[in-house]
């Protein structure tokens, strides 16, 4: 499960960090990106241009988009799932982030932790995108994040983590057109734990209404 993440960068920061992609103007730092919100993603349409997608994949065949909002897709089984199999073959994207939150369950309570790369650089999450056609013929583009089993750093907090794709895989992931899902399996390897860091954060992040720098500050037990 990956249900919240951050992208604490502006358009200028993003352009400097991902020189191979083109970004829309006006991007502001976000500390609590939640499902249902627009997220910045680079789709595999051959243009290497980031655009906003709604987080919560609505399958093309959904009659009612209010019922189907998949925020995650399990990478290991996405090739078999009706909601994801076409997207995995044909509509992949990179969702840009610089950190994500996971919650540790302790009895009845849940403690949030924040995860980043050790070098604090922004990174790319593996995503799937889909087009849903509205009754008036207009299209809505939505996306979901792929998840995999947790690495050694995430595992004490949560059993799953998002798929983080290293830069050398981006070109293959973003190739337009059809790809055999079997060839993608090596990508589901959890990102190396030694390249990541985590710290405990305040439960303030639980509330999707809060979006401020203090959410990612470390708290002590």
């Amino acid at each position, binding site marked *: 499960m990956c249900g919240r993440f951050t992208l604490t960068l502006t358009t200028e920061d993003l352009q400097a960090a991902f020189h191979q992609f083109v970004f829309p103007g*006006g*991007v502001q730092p976000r500390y609590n990106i939640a499902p249902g919100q627009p997220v910045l993603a680079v789709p595999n349409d051959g243009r290497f241009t980031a655009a906003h997608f709604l987080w919560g994949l609505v399958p093309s065949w959904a009659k009612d988009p209010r019922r189907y909002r998949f925020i995650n897709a399990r990478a290991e089984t996405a090739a078999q799932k009706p909601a994801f199999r076409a997207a995995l073959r044909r509509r992949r994207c990179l969702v840009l982030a610089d950190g994500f939150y996971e919650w540790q369950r302790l009895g009845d309570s849940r403690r949030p932790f924040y995860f980043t790369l050790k070098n604090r650089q922004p990174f790319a999450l593996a995503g799937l995108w889909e087009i849903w056609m*509205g009754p008036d013929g207009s299209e809505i*583009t939505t996306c979901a994040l792929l998840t995999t089993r947790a690495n050694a750093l995430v595992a004490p907090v949560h059993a799953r983590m998002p798929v983080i794709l290293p830069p050398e895989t981006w070109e293959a992931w973003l190739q337009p057109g059809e790809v055999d899902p079997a060839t993608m399996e090596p990508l589901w390897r959890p990102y190396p734990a030694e390249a990541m860091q985590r710290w405990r954060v305040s439960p303030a992040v639980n509330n*999707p*209404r809060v979006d401020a720098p203090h959410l990612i500050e470390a708290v002590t037990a």
Partner: protein
Amino acid sequence: MSGCAGIGGVVLAAGGARRMGGRLKQLLPCKGEVLVHRAARTALEAGLRPVWVVVGAQAQAVWQAVADLPVEILLNPAWEAGQSASVRLAAAALRRARLAGGVFFPADQPFVPPALVTALCEAYCRTRAPIVTPEIARERSTPVLVAASIFPLLEELHGDTGARALFDRIPPLPLHWDAPQARAEIDTPADYRRWCPEGATWQGD
């Protein structure tokens, strides 16, 4: 803003009205931003959290117009059935978020100042009136604040109506507001020319 703790915002931007020379009203530029962006930004600046934007007609174009703001998008595929479908969707979201109240904004009223929204919230906190509306130049206007007790009633609405369908049963508390521009609606090309002339700079109240 203290007046708005626990109160969310809803921008109703699903409609398909194209009286402005074939252009969707909520995507018309006015004072440097399109109308739906202006409404969502006002809600955020007033301190409402979260802010939902309900989209339907040309849904993608409308939500893309607010993609730079920290808002949640509600898709209303039944927008042609009238405004109540959007109101029901938003009321359910407000209820699930366990908010004390919600402020419903039309997307075509560009000069609602954030201070007016804050004043609505403060009037609610002071009186606990279940519905609060601005009264501008002796006329009832929008945005409308509804308390949580009203959410279930909104979820039962049908047809092309919103919270105003409840006003007979539950008279709103009027909040007097002096600046008449706040109630300006962009409903016709003449309104648009009057209120959003190219290059004019509105300085606010």
